[in-house]
């Protein structure tokens, strides 16, 4: 088991009141679209946090904001002792070795003109310049083996890889610099169903071996259930619920989480037909004009007058945190 040099007992990642917005053109005018609002959570050492949500939930914006790929409007992100949002230039690049990402589309995340070998060596060349070329090559080879690929793959170009292979390379590239925190942005959605289980298993194995903290963003609930310790549910850029994995799937508190879990198709005809599910009414609101108060109220079967006036704060309910005025009653 390789020692993770960044493993401490302190919180790996700490996010507070994160807000992200984009300028978009709508009806001829330039307006601001709030992709994330008031997002805060802690990621413990060797913990895996799942982030689930549908379109417009802001989960991809969250990943990109944490990695400083897009500008952040407000809030703070602490990576261990470093204030991530305050860093820039060389200081920011220094920290990059500690926080890495696996992208959604493995093939698109690779430079089409670069061989796998160069793609894997590059993070080491840039972020660990003290290594000699021989040491780099040795690490690359070791990492390649750990993700289940052979040396022959080093000479390939991205278009010669399958989706699953490309994703393994993406994981290898992220982990070759030995980060303490790994963010996976929908790593399974561009893969065939039969390959997804393999990649999920790979992530679990690698995580267990190195004590990595992981943020696993996905809309694939079964995969989240398999991999995560805690789960965070996003809707229209706001947190609806944060709970331990078991608690969430067994007894979700927020109406949206319950609806989400109910909507997952069950591959068992008897069970599927026995369920009398009432699908959520209405549409996911536009992020450009979110509903007042609680953003979920337009589709919530339990909404009352208060839900339109006041946005519910995230509060403790047992072991979970829920943003619902009526949590506990329903």
């Amino acid at each position: 088991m390789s020692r993770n040099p960044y493993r401490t007992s302190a919180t790996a990642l700490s996010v507070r009141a994160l807000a992200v917005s984009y300028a978009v053109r709508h009806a001829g005018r330039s307006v601001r679209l709030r992709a994330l609002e008031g997002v805060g959570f802690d990621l413990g050492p060797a913990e895996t946090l799942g982030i689930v949500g549908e379109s417009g939930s802001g989960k991809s914006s969250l990943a990109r904001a944490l990695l400083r790929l897009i500008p952040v409007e407000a809030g703070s992100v602490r990576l261990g002792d470093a204030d991530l949002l305050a860093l820039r230039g060389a200081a920011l690049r220094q920290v990059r070795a500690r926080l890495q990402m696996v992208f959604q589309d493995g093939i698109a995340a690779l430079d089409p003109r670069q061989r796998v070998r160069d793609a894997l060596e590059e993070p080491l060349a840039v972020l660990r310049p003290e290594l000699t070329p021989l040491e780099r090559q040795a690490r690359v080879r070791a990492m390649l083996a750990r993700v289940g690929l052979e040396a022959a793959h080093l000479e390939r170009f991205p278009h010669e890889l399958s989706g699953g292979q490309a994703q393994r390379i993406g994981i290898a590239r992220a982990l070759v610099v030995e980060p303490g925190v790994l963010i996976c942005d929908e790593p399974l959605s561009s893969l065939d169903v039969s390959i997804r289980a393999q990649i999920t298993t790979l992530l679990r194995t690698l995580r267990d071996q190195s004590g990595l903290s992981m943020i696993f963003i996905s809309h694939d609930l079964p995969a989240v259930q398999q991999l995560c310790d805690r789960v965070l549910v996003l809707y229209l850029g706001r947190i609806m619920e944060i709970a331990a994995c078991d608690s969430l799937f067994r007894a979700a508190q927020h109406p949206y989480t319950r609806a989400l879990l109910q909507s997952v198709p069950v591959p068992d005809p008897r069970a599927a037909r026995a369920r009398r599910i009432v699908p959520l009414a209405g549409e996911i609101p536009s992020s450009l004009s979110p509903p007042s108060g609680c953003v979920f109220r337009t589709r919530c079967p339990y909404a009352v007058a208060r839900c339109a006036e006041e946005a519910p704060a995230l509060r403790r309910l047992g072991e979970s945190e829920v943003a619902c005025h009526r949590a506990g009653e329903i």
Partner: protein
Amino acid sequence: MNSARAPGEFVAWRRALDRHPGTLVAGGVLLLIALASLVVPALSPYDYYTPQLDLVSRPPMLHGGHLLGTDPLGRDLLIRVLWGCRISLLIALVASLISVLLGVLWGALAGYTGGRTDALMMRAVDVLYSVPFVPFVIVLTMLFGRALWLMFVAIGAVSWLDIARIVRGEALALKRRDFIDAARVAGVHGARMIGRHIVPNLLGVVIIYATLTVPTVILFEAFMSFLGLGVRVPLASLGSLIADGASDMQAHPHLLLVPAAVLATIVYCFNFVGDGLRDLLDPHDRT
């Protein structure tokens, strides 16, 4: 299903070339002309500058030793034309090289950096675009006299603008792609990003536009020489030969037709090769 390997790059190229026999032929013709222009003058008993006043303006003859005839000073037209090819091709390639290098660096930097730098750099391009070419060359000629290198500089200085614009557009599009984000997460930035990730992924477009620039450059040069601004006598370029031939068109048509035909062939072939390359490189690029 996804485990099927796409064919290697080389095989894909070969197969694509099979589909474009025209490109191969055009490329072959160009190579032939280039080789001929280099080799034949060395083998021929005639040179391009010694006048032979007893053989003035002879039409093409199969047996008299002057395959394509002679020019008004009795010099062998074939050799003159081949020398003209040498000059024209040299100017074309060097000037294109200058414009490609300058255009790619400028455009890639502007496109990737974005923001105010991009705006400034592209405004500079816009301003230079509006400079009228012919007066510009005339001014340069007045300042520095008629010289070969002047042609390189003048033409290169103007044709880089188009490439800069194209490259900047491509760089802007590239910037948004996932693998650039992935490289940023790996700490890549600045010169390394532009040199290793942006420019190599532009090359397809650049090669296409470079090969399409070449005929433009050749025609530019021909035009300059036609106007009397290009190469100095006794050196000839295809343009100056055409100019000379045009003045004697009615009496000795071969003096115009031969260099004109060669120029047309070269330009046509370059266009063909450029088109073929575009087909070859574009679908491959858009993975």
